[in-house]
């Protein structure tokens, strides 16, 4: 008898849990349908949430160069700032998010590559970044990219930058991979690691953070070319509109202001605004 009671109770709990989760996922579905590409009130934009200077979620809101570009583009498309819904676009999810229509466009340090171009369309590029290194401000032993070969480098697990180091840039260097750039920076700070390597725009964003100001410097090596584009769904008519918006952003100097505001404090020598459709290999 007692056993039966327990069984009944656990069955009830299980059923409740199942219905509860079912409701949860339902809500989510209808939510994204409202705010998806079809809605004419809101626009959903995918950005990075964890890259200072590029795309970061802070208690005060969203900030970074990608955020500024996306806000400008959205304004040109007819959406005011409070009509934008930001969504986190992690590197591995970006193509899927666009294909499913979870976001209208993505501006998330999204380098244009052939593999990605086959899956989604790119507007832009709007920034030409290069792989670079961030080293301790008092470290004078790294002057050229060749100096990296006997150093200890760090980058994010599986990232393009990490793979470049292993295969091309400094195959003899030791490479530590961590899940986040902040973990690498801890290592650079306590001298277990010599340099953090990834796109210079991201590095500049870290170096410009208040807590790191003056502690790190950029190497200034242009080791690769990363053309940041704005990703849209394949065949979307947004591509042409975003390109027009980007051209306007450059011509009315808002582009330069955004670069200065986000990367300025790091002494980052950024490239001039790239021409639309001009992908530097």
């Amino acid at each position, binding site marked *: 008898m007692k056993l039966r009671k327990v069984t009944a109770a656990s069955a009830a709990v299980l059923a409740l849990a199942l219905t509860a989760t079912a409701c949860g996922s339902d809500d989510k579905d209808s939510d994204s349908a409202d705010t998806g590409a079809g809605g004419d009130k809101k626009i959903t934009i995918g950005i990075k949430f964890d890259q200072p200077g590029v795309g970061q979620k802070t208690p005060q809101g969203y900030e970074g160069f990608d955020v500024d570009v996306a806000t400008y583009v959205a304004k040109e498309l007819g959406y005011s700032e409070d009509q934008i819904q930001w969504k986190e676009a992690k590197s591995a999810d970006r193509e899927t998010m666009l294909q499913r229509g979870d976001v209208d466009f993505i501006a998330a340090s999204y380098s244009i590559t052939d593999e990605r171009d086959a899956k989604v369309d790119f507007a832009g590029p709007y920034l030409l970044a290069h792989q670079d290194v961030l080293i301790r401000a008092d470290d004078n032993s790294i002057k050229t990219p060749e100096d990296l070969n006997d150093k200890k480098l760090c980058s994010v697990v599986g990232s393009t930058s*990490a793979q470049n180091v292993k295969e091309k840039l400094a195959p003899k260097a030791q490479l530590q991979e961590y899940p986040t750039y902040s973990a690498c920076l801890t290592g650079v700070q306590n001298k277990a690691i010599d340099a953090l390597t990834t796109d210079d725009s991201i590095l500049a964003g870290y170096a410009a953070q208040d807590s790191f100001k003056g502690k790190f410097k950029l190497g200034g090596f242009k080791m690769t070319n990363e053309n940041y584009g704005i990703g849209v769904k394949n065949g979307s008519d947004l591509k042409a509109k975003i390109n027009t918006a980007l051209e306007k952003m450059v011509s009315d100097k808002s582009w330069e202001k955004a670069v200065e505001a986000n990367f300025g404090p790091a002494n980052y020598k950024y490239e001039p605004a790239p021409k639309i459709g001009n992908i530097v290999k």
Partner: protein
Amino acid sequence: MRRPRGRRTCSKEPSTHAEAREIVFDFLEGYNLWEAFWTTVQLTVLSAVGSLIWGTLLAAMRVGPVPLMRGFGTAYVNIVRNIPLTVIILFASLGLNQTLGISLGANTFETINFRLAVLGFVAYTSAFVCEALRSGINTVPVGQAEAARAIGLNFTQVLTLIVLPQAFRSVVGPLANVLIALTKNTTVAAAIGVGEAALLMKEMIENEAQLLLIAAVFAVGFMCLTLPTGLILGWVSKKVAVKR
């Protein structure tokens, strides 16, 4: 077995770009899947052996007559098994290596990280091995231990000659579960840059923009490792079970 998968999927894709097909074709070929899975196997085997030893010692402490050791065993198991594995592995790298400078006798990041990962997995998995083994010890009738004591064996002898052999035979099934969980847990080592299967998967997803296909390949890879483990140890567990 793997290459035809890619080919089949590629023929279904709308070929908007001519080179896209070429890339999908190559997408498994440019990578060394065997090497990555071999590292996974090495991590699993070394961690399994280590955690079996340390787990047995812990179980012995937990059933032993010395209160201090019993307390240590209980505390260890309850603390370690309740910490997320990622935290343990990251602590091994960021805490032990980067901050305290422990390098476990190696001098390249590659070997240091591998050894740190094994250390982390042993520390974590042995808590589960200990608990599985303790449940096995509980299946041995008290009379066995009492009879052993009566003929004058001391605690170590009772444990190693009478109780543990019977206990091990009854926990092959549960230990197989722990081993399968450990095999899959080794993917956490990617967090500190050990070049095993999960790290290769991350690299491939980054390069190829083929999330689901790549994930499926790796899921199948892991099943190739864990299914035989489960089947073989399931058979062994039936074979060696103590009939009571």
